[in-house]
């Protein structure tokens, strides 16, 4: 199930809310766990055991780690930590990477092991990372052990952030998991955040997505230079609004339920370096890799050589985390390379350049990175890049003009929306007048109503010919 669907908004969510708020405090984790399982199982009931086993294994490992640490038996504690990590990595590898690994082994050794062809279970990339954060933090003594299986299950399967993050480290919400307060103010702010996220997804991301879709479906021979740039602009805006919208909806829902999830995006397209970009984009994943890979490997404390190795390790992992194919590996290496270069000398140059120049520099490199990201096939990606920078071929065609002028308003809204400008302006005027608070609610309702309209429209499917 996805948030941006009639099914979620008008069936699942109201039903869940009624149960959640009607039941007394101590049953709420149970309600949350149960509904999360329904949410998870809706599309693929066959995988329901997966999340249950995952919950069970990490719950038991966490308890064992804690018990052994109390007995000062670090070896046994370490053993259970290893079990947990191997289990999670193993599960992720099997479900996400087995086809990719076997395909490569096959082509490398010229054999043909049949592909298992397993479907990727939703959210697996997120909840395996979350459960690992739990056992690792318990081992490190940074988090308390969870002695209630239902509460732990609610954490692992929590539907607000199950499918698209943020990656909530256990420590962040450990306290709220056992003792959280609900407030009308939080709920109301959470609702606003959720609706704005819904609007970002349904009204902006989906529509900008259509621009990218029509450009990427152009046969590569007839793609023009301007078309290629428009396509990448659209893709960059789509992926930002899509992804950050999911985070907004998750954070908003979390607030309503009494959880505070970490922020995941902070106007990344305003960044003035790639280093800054990655501090503003998918923050929770960056934090995860920093805490559990980069720093344990020594971070920057073991000399520049080692630091560079650590950066590349993190970025290759970040790359494949996004998808099981070579273009994501390359995409990760691309960013690793840029980050190392910035660390060594580019940042010093950027410091001396005017703001605008550093923003252009960052956006340019990010847009190029989206070409790698959006093309599974490297050949197609390279061809696309060549079209972008080939100013001798056809520059512009009617189709591109049509897409541009008919989507101009949406593209403009998205560009403005990806800066902090609207929020900055809003905060300014909001402080000045009472009338604006009415406007805010009016605006929120408009976003909700139009998002509903766009969602209903997706199902409009006129069948034009009789008996056909």
């Amino acid at each position, binding site marked *: 199930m996805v948030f941006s*669907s*009639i*099914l979620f*908004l*008008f*069936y699942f*969510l*109201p039903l869940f809310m009624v149960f959640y708020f009607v039941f007394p405090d101590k049953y709420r984790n149970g309600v949350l766990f149960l509904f999360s399982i329904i949410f998870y199982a*809706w*599309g*693929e*009931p*066959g995988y329901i055991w997966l999340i249950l086993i995952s919950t069970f294994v990490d719950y038991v490992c966490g308890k064992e780690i804690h018990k052994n640490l109390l007995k000062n038996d670090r070896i046994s504690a370490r053993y259970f930590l290893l079990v947990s990590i191997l289990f999670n990595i193993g599960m992720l590898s099997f479900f996400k990477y087995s086809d990719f690994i076997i395909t490569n082994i096959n082509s490398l050794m010229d054999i043909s092991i049949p592909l298992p062809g397993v479907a990727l279970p939703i959210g697996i990339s997120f909840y395996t990372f979350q459960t690992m954060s739990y056992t690792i933090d318990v081992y490190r003594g940074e988090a308390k052990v969870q002695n209630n299986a239902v509460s732990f299950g609610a954490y692992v399967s929590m539907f607000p952030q199950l499918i698209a993050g943020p990656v909530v480290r256990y420590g962040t919400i450990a306290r709220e998991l056992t003792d959280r307060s609900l407030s*009308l*103010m939080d*709920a*109301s*702010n959470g*609702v*606003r955040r959720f*609706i704005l996220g819904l609007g970002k997804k349904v009204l902006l991301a989906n529509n900008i997505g*259509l621009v990218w879709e029509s450009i990427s*479906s152009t046969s590569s021979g007839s793609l023009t230079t301007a078309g290629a740039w428009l396509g990448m602009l659209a893709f960059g805006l789509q992926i930002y609004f899509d992804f950050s919208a999911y985070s907004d909806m998750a954070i908003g829902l979390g607030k309503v339920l009494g959880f505070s999830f970490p922020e995941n995006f902070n106007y990344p397209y305003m960044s003035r370096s790639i280093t800054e970009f990655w501090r503003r984009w998918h923050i929770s994943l960056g934090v995860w890799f920093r805490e559990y890979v980069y720093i344990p490997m020594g971070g920057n404390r073991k000399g520049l050589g080692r630091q560079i190795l650590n950066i590349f390790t993190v970025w290759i992992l970040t790359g494949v985390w996004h998808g099981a194919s070579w273009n994501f590996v390359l995409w990760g290496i691309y960013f690793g390379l840029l980050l190392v270069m910035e660390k060594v000398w580019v940042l010093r140059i950027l410091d001396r350049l005017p703001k605008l120049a550093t923003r252009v520099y960052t956006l340019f490199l990010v847009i190029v990175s989206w070409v790698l990201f959006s093309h599974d096939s490297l050949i197609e990606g390279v061809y696309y890049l060549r079209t972008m920078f080939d100013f001798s071929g056809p520059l512009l065609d*009617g*189709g591109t*003009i*049509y897409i541009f*002028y*008919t*989507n*101009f*308003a*949406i593209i403009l809204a998205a560009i403005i929306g990806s800066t902090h400008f609207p929020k900055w302006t809003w905060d300014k005027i909001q402080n000045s007048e009472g009338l604006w*608070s*009415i406007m*805010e*609610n009016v605006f*929120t*309702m408009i976003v*909700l*109503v*139009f998002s*509903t*309209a*766009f*969602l*209903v*429209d*997706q*199902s*409009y*499917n*006129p*069948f*034009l*010919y*009789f*008996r*056909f």
Partner: protein
Amino acid sequence: MKDKIRLTLVSLFMVLVSILNLLVPSKSFSNTENRYLQLLPEFGIEELFSGEYAESFQIYSTDQFPFRDFWIRLKTAADLVTLKKDNGRVYFGKDDFLFEVEPPFNLDIIMGNIGYILEFADSLEERETGFNVVLIPSKEAVLDGFLPDYAPVPDESLIFDTLKDKSGEAFKVINLLNVLKNEDDEYIYYKTDHHWTSYGAYKAYSFLGSELGFEPLGMNDFKKLQVANDFLGAVYRKANLYTGTPDTMEVYKNIHVEILEIKIDGAFSGKDIYYGEYLDSIDKYSYFFGGDHGVVDIETTSDSGKELLIVKDSFSNSFVPFLLEHYSRLVMVDPRHLGGDMSELIEEINPDEVLLMLNTENIAYSRILGVLAR
């Protein structure tokens, strides 16, 4: 205060819609979409675990959404307000013209259909039956001046050129594009439907006389009747929002010739090719012949003695009435609805001539002509 109001408004909206969901009775058929809607799926353990229940329920949740048409109209209105010229299904053209947004051509389908036409032509040549092909261009191709500026449409000349090229001298391939384009300031296509008007069909008829060997009648030989002025066609249904005036529908009734009898798929069905009851329905274009049928066999009082078999689609339903004067027997065959074998049918009817007259889009998007080679 602001927070309370927000929470109340949003909760009210959600609860209201959810309650309406429960209260508004389900509809089993949508007239605007012309399809059956998903009803509440029956719950079963097996369906649950196969994912079938989830899928049906998902479709049910949108198909039965309260005031569904209103929401869809609202979405399209939002598109138009944000300066879009299409809503993904329909272009909102100039002078209130609506056009379908067509996907790019699939060459496999086109080449496949052309192959079937060539096979068909071969078999007709063997039995020395005359054969001609007429391609009816789509509204987008003829009225391209009324499309939104730069709106991309597939290039239909590809179909005509390929077919012409492959036909060699064996049969004539006639393109109506230029004939109709010359009339593009006249009312030759409906604004809200993809079909041509009777006037458009008349123009094609006048032109085809010299190509197919008959003397076309003048306007005065027909009695012009307006049968509807509230026609909202198939493209309107796709758009679901229209700010112009509805189309008018006219017919040209031949005053010289009469129909002796009509057989539809072998059964006698009177002498009238016009089905008035459809004028009250949403599908007004089916006024002509009551829509598409497998085989419509018409005998007329024409003294020409000629017999013509037309492989046709819905465009011909408003075109064939003009031909009644020139053929003693007219057999309309719709390849999409033909049950039996084409070769048997030709054998049985033994026409003097065969005419294949199809809209380019029907050749481009579905493998409908396989039946010709059977």
